[in-house]
């Protein structure tokens, strides 16, 4: 199979309220930063994928409103609704299709402009479930209880994820919530929905991220060192919450296995050097690590206590600060991807890890991780 690489990344700072920027303004900033990073001009881009969500954007066909500011005029532009990692998947397939060579992929959202509880309530089935009034926070709280009950993970271990990631964010100028916290700060923060405290939850955020994906024939033509897309897969579980064992993420285990096989990874625990995983809530970082085989079942909390997932640990996880430190829905997966690209290039700045030849990026779609997308990125082709 032909190969593709990421040759440029650009992100806005993640903020609580981007009062100066419209969606298009955010795209303009992220796209220009990605072009600068790659050493390209917009004329070097031959097609564009935008990633957004109509409900979050408060309009229909939201993807079409950012095309102009993304340089999509006169180019083939298409869109994905879902996390940015899925937009990148579509972007990669286009770069490998033979029709295009360089794909610009963007993802944006603003949590600040709506009421997240009402928006995420609308992802429940309208006939059977929506009227009960659950939302993303309460759904994930229910999943956290199921996960804690099965694995005996403790509230303190979950709080340590928050302490670690907010602490890492102090080294990342793009993060919204850099904070030096103690476990007791997390446990004393407001209980929003048992067992999740306020500091177990990611904040409401605004932001836009862009990545440029190139076919191997042009990947080295520009300024930047290519970071190779070595493996990718996404899998989905049942829509209805009650059809799944919500203490597990079967589709994530499947997606990770396929991505590892594609990348030729036999022992992910040894071969993955750095990972950015979808920590919308503290328990998720631990649960996702176990499902991806990066920690044995029911052990991620204990490994975290030992410091294995610290920035200087065996496997640094969310060295950028993760989504707990800034969570622009949809754009989130592209921020993670950009963080891992920078690690592999060796230009992650203050949150650079020691060794980063192979990195993992994980994105999520749907309530409580109905669907998961796993990427393996590498320094070597």
């Amino acid at each position, binding site marked *: 199979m032909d190969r593709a690489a990421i040759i440029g990344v650009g992100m806005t700072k993640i903020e609580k309220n981007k009062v100066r920027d419209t969606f298009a303004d955010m795209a303009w900033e992220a796209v220009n930063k990605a072009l600068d990073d790659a050493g390209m001009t917009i004329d070097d881009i031959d097609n564009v994928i935008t990633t957004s969500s109509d409900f979050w954007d408060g309009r229909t066909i939201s993807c079409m409103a950012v095309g102009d500011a993304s340089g999509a005029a006169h180019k083939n532009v298409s869109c994905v609704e879902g996390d940015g990692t899925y937009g990148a998947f579509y972007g990669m397939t286009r770069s490998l299709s033979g029709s295009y060579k360089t794909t610009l992929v963007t993802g944006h959202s603003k949590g600040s402009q709506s009421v997240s509880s*009402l928006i995420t309530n609308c992802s429940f089935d309208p*006939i059977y479930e929506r009227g009960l*009034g659950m939302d993303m926070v309460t759904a994930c709280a*229910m999943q956290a209880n199921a996960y804690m009950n099965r694995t005996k993970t403790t509230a303190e271990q979950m709080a340590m994820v928050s302490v670690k990631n907010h602490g890492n964010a102090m080294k990342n100028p793009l993060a919204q919530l850099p904070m030096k916290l103690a476990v007791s700060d997390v446990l004393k923060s407001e*209980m929003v929905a048992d067992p999740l405290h306020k500091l177990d939850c990611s904040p409401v955020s605004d932001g836009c991220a862009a990545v440029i994906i190139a076919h191997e024939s042009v990947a080295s033509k520009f300024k930047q060192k290519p970071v190779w897309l070595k493996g990718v897969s996404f899998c989905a579980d049942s829509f209805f919450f009650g059809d799944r064992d919500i203490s597990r993420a079967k589709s994530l285990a499947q997606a990770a296995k396929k991505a590892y096989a594609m990348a030729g990874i036999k022992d992910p625990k040894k071969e993955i050097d750095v990972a950015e995983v979808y920590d919308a809530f503290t328990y998720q970082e631990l649960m996702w690590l176990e499902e991806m085989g990066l920690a044995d079942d029911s052990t991620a909390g204990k490994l975290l206590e030992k410091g294995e997932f610290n920035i200087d640990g065996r496997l640094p996880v969310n060295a950028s600060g993760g989504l707990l430190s800034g969570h622009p829905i949809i754009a989130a997966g592209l921020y993670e991807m950009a963080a891992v690209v920078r690690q592999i290039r060796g230009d992650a700045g203050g949150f650079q890890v020691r060794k980063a030849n192979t990195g993992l990026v994980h994105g999520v779609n749907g309530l409580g991780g109905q669907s998961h997308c796993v990427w393996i990125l590498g320094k070597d082709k």
Partner: protein
Amino acid sequence: MADQFKGIDPMVYNSKINVPYSWWAGDTASRFFISLRDEKKIIATRCGTCRKTFLPPRKSCPTCFTENTEWVNVSDEGTVLSFTVARRKFAAIPADRKMPVIWALIRLEGADTALLHYLDDVKPEDVKIGMRVKAVFAEERKATIRDISHFKPVR
């Protein structure tokens, strides 16, 4: 250039998206809701291939990709698989619900999947995964999921 936002609130365009929208409940959900309303019975669909019973009922089996042709009665009693207690009054919570609201995933006897619903008549600290609960039907029923008022512990 002077900062145009200095000392003033940033400009916003306030609006509200309010589009009337009706979902046709369809054959399957209508039958389920009519059974709740008129008979206070919880019914589910069953896959003829794998014999799995689905609640809430739906027309096709996601595993076998075949049509669920059979209807079965399921018990109004079951087991709590997980739960949460909302301490904050989230905007999606219906106005008539008293805080704190407890939701649970409940697997009723006779069903292979779990139903999302409320728990009530119980203190939040007494709710446990694995506890037995029973459906309490609403006095006034309108053929919606809230024809079941809530589930309460089996004493």
